């Protein structure tokens, strides 16, 4: 193909590789988004991780059929890239077909779901496999210029991340894969030679027509019947009245005459529960559109335990964290505060409330006493000087009937001890923190919340937390209030009156008698009170010995909704039955399943090429260790940086994209420069040492630097981020091409294997990092990353140990083989396998 402005075929290939790499990463991210809507995000991650093992599988195939593929690379590479684009276009649409539709909830109760799941894996695997195979062939064919090709790959990947961000904000999620598919098709055509372009034109033509049809009429996303949006759409006359693509997710607003909002409403309430529209983000319930008017005297939430802090005393200056679509704000304004600061990270919802639903919500989001901050709560708390709030209200925790642990691995920096300490500093001396949770069974959220509150009081010099904490329980909710100063006698009496009026029971109150705790709502299980009292009394054994993880979350382990103790799995299974266990803590189990299945597949992909590499009588352990540690180290550092910069910028979507793109682009630059260095063992060793040194520094100084500059101006924060992310990434980008170039001189047959190892291990690393973070904390994840680069450094520092010719072992093995066949040692096989030195 003769592209006027790019006549050089090498240049075309490099640009084609960049475009295709952009498409692959954009496809991965768009699939994550789509599967998160159809099912939920951990599950999306499970499917994608298996699909991404296409990289490992491509390495295996390359190792097994290296010569065949390289000889035909001129037409195979563009064909693979075009086909990958074609599959990207249709993959999601295929999974919408009745035959391939499955449900994660049913996975644990219907065996018939497993073949469907396997089919889904296969459908998503193909575009990754074909795409990765094309990249792998290019890398191996052009080992001498690997720096340039790797640069194109990383730069393309970085830009792909930014492209998908742009698409998220402007088109519906189901339209994104066909758009991205076109990018790969274009890359395939660009890389084609005149001689072999016809087949690509046919495939590309079909892909283009299909893509345009799918973009024009994208159809509905088939949301799981168990997701809240589907259940809501089953209600009479339910209708989606607003749908908006946003980078924070797909926002949908549903109207139905049967939609009402009154969480754990008092049984004494005899009025009408108002009908309200519901807001969903990625098909999960997000909040309700409040009906507000400035003359309003009462609010339905006044008949729930959430009214507790308002019944204790008047509040002037209030902070509402994660105030969703505004229902808690409408409730707050009934009590006439002088100033309400609302922190809502989802900018799409805020914009929608300020425009589309401004009239309906009585211009609540434009209230003269309201300030809306569109950042994550934690970022707001850390970046502002103490504000002297009378009340800080946290969003309601958990969900009615439990969440089956689907949020277990969602980092929540608003619910860590460090966040509560910051809240404490923002309170005026009489101020209070209020948080409500659904009651769950077995009790987890309520106990963890209490443990967090008690620990916060201790951390801030309160020796008798029982005098500062009030808690009220209804049939479904508990609201906790932690007051900076001791609760007054009047406040205690007001709480008692409130409970009596609403048929609620006080759970914690100074001077509370045991019999007061179950006047209206009998729990029938005294253990709960035993645990509540034990936690309040600060008995560490109570928390340690509980069957679930109820230790307060910290910034190092920010998983407030994670309750599963792996050591108790068997016991829980015996108590609740193996079939029901997944529905107690599904999220964490999914990650474990993901890790196990991707590890098994990765091992297969790593071991299979060894069948071929048996003929190579060069040591393979250096290759295995070096490329595996690079894969783990790179991903672990990426995960740590994402975690830290989400806190720093307060906008997860932007932070994640910025971290990934900066890392990839800086790594690409490093890769490009690495081409100028000779392929000796010295250079990977030096670069490995530099990275280890940097990362060691990060373990000590990264958090203080970020904490110290969190309140800086945005341009300064961007410069700091570019430096902190960019510098180590630049060096990290050198490691892979330097290693590959060395390897091609040492034993070229091991190059595809290295590509496969790196790809397989990178995929495992994501779930492995999460597991380590949950069990041991992010510090350990960082420690492992440092170790990985240190090992990579050692491999090349002592390269003679790891990369050596194994002729002695090789000789004896051949002798043994030959003898077993009754042949002499001078069998011609010796000569053919000339990697063995005589």
């Amino acid at each position, binding site marked *: 193909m003769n592209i006027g402005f790019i006549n050089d075929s090498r240049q075309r290939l490099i640009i084609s590789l960049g475009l295709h790499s952009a498409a692959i990463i954009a496809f991965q991210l768009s699939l994550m988004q789509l599967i998160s809507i159809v099912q939920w995000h951990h599950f999306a991650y499970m499917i994608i991780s298996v699909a991404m093992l296409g990289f490992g599988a491509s390495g295996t195939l390359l190792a097994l059929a290296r010569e065949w593929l390289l000889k035909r690379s001129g037409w195979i590479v563009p064909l693979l890239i075009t086909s990958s684009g074609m599959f990207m276009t249709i993959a999601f649409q295929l999974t919408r077909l009745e035959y391939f539709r499955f449900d994660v*909830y049913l996975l644990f*109760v219907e065996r018939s779901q497993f073949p469907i799941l396997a089919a889904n894996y296969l459908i998503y695997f193909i575009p990754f496999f074909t795409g990765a195979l094309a990249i792998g062939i290019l890398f191996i064919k052009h080992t001498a210029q690997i720096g340039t090709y790797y640069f194109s790959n990383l730069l393309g990947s970085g830009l792909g991340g930014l492209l998908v961000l742009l698409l998220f904000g402007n088109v519906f999620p189901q339209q994104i894969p066909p758009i991205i598919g076109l990018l790969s098709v274009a890359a395939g055509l660009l890389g084609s030679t005149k001689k072999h372009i016809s087949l690509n034109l046919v495939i590309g033509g079909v892909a283009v027509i299909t893509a345009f049809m799918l973009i024009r009429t994208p159809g509905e996303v088939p949301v799981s019947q168990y997701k809240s949006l589907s259940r809501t759409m089953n209600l009479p006359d339910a209708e989606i009245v607003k749908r908006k693509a946003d980078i924070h997710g797909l926002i949908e607003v549903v109207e139905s005459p049967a939609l009402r909002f*009154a969480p754990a409403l008092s049984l004494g309430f005899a009025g009408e529960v108002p009908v309200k529209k519901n807001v969903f983000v990625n098909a999960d319930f997000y909040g309700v559109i409040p009906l507000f008017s400035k003359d309003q005297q009462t609010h339905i939430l006044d008949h729930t335990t959430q009214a507790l802090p308002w019944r204790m005393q008047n509040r002037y200056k209030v902070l509402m964290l994660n105030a969703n679509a505004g229902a808690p704000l409408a409730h707050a304004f009934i009590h006439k505060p002088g100033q309400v600061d609302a922190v809502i990270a989802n900018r799409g919802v805020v914009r929608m409330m300020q425009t589309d639903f401004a009239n309906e919500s009585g211009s609540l989001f434009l209230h003269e006493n309201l300030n809306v901050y569109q950042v994550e709560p934690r970022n707001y708390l850390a970046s502002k000087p103490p504000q002297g709030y009378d009340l800080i209200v946290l969003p309601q925790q958990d969900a*009615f009937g439990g*969440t*089956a642990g689907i949020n277990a691995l969602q980092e929540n920096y608003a619910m860590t001890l460090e966040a509560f300490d910051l809240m404490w500093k923002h309170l005026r001396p009489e101020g209070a923190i209020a948080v409500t949770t659904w009651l769950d*069974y*077995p009790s987890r959220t309520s106990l963890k919340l209490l443990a967090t509150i008690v620990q916060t009081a201790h951390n801030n010099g309160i020796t008798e937390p029982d005098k500062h904490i009030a808690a009220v329980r209804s*049939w479904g909710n508990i609201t906790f209030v932690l007051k900076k100063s001791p609760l007054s006698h009047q406040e205690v009496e007001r709480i008692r009156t409130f409970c009596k009026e609403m048929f609620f029971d006080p759970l914690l109150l100074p001077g509370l008698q045991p019999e007061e705790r179950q006047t209206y709502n009998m729990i029938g299980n005294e253990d709960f009170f035993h645990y509540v009292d034990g936690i309040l009394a600060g008995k560490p054994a109570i928390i340690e*010995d509980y069957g679930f993880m109820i230790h307060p979350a910290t910034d190092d382990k920010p998983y407030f909704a994670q309750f599963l103790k792996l050591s108790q799995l068997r016991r829980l299974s015996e108590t609740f039955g193996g079939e029901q266990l997944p529905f107690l803590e599904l999220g964490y189990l999914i990650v474990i399943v993901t890790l196990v299945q991707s590890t098994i597949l990765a091992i297969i992909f790593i071991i299979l090429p060894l069948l071929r590499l048996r003929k190579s009588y060069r040591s393979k352990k250096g290759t295995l260790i070096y490329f595996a540690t690079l894969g783990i180290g790179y991903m672990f550092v990426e995960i740590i940086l994402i975690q830290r910069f989400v806190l720093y910028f307060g906008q997860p979507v932007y932070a994640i994209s910025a971290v990934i793109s900066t890392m990839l682009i800086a790594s690409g630059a490093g890769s490009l420069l690495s081409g100028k260095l000779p392929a000796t063992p010295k250079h990977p060793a030096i670069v490995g040492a530099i990275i280890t040194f940097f990362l060691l520094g990060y373990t000590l100084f990264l958090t203080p630097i970020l904490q110290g500059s969190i309140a800086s101006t945005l341009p300064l924060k961007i410069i700091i981020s570019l430096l902190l992310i960019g510098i180590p990434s630049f060096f990290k980008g050198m490691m892979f091409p330097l290693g590959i170039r060395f390897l091609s001189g040492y034993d070229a047959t091991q190059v595809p294997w290295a590509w496969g190892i790196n790809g397989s291990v990178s995929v495992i690393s994501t779930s492995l990092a999460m597991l380590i973070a949950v069990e041991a904390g992010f510090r350990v994840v960082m420690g492992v990353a440092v170790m990985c680069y240190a090992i990579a450094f050692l491999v090349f520092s002592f390269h003679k140990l790891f990369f050596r010719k194994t002729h002695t072992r090789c000789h004896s093995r051949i002798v043994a083989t030959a003898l077993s066949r009754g042949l002499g040692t001078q069998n011609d096989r010796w000569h053919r396998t000339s990697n063995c030195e005589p």
Partner: protein
Amino acid sequence: MNKLNLFLATFLLAISHMALADEFERERNSMVRTQIQARGISDRATLNAMRTVPRHLYVPYAQRRNAYQDRPLPIGYGQTISQPYIVAYMTEIVRPKPDDIMLEIGTGSGYQAAVLAEIIDQVYTIEIVSPLGEQAKRKLEAQYGNVHVKIGDGYHGWAEHGPYDAIVVTAAAEYIPPPLVEQLKEGGRMIIPVGSPFQVQQLMLVEKKQDGGITTRSLMPVRFVPFERERE
């Protein structure tokens, strides 16, 4: 010859149908013995009803072979049919008597209504998901003359037939509609399951006292014994 073939086919069909019915009956009796009685349900009327109602007819065809297993089953539209033990437990706890009038919110498959209809005079049941309600209505009205199915929003209850001796809410919402409390007789009982699909560990009993006061009681069919207490 054709007539003979037809006769043979009909005969074989009848035999296999009887064999299958026998098999389901055996499974049902085993279900009552091992899943329900063994866990402490002793109310004779409840046990008889559980032995009588063919649960396999109230689950989707593809789930029939699982009908008597000790777990909830999917019935479509994001709904489940409760585990047999939970149905029995909910039935026993509302203390049904033959002359009672009961309201069920969330007909679902119709199985709970069928069990109640075996014991009491009049069962009124409301289903909000139209296709589910229509399906259950056909089955229940063919089998029972004392079950009345309405398709609509359970929030408002069914005031014209109330007040009710008991209300069974099988599809719980995050609030208890005030009209339901209103339609409950003084001294009446309302039972509500709390849990995500496939996981019902907790039930709640709402009692309306003679003085109009309302209390709730958490009932836990599966008892989670905290480990630390065990060691004491």
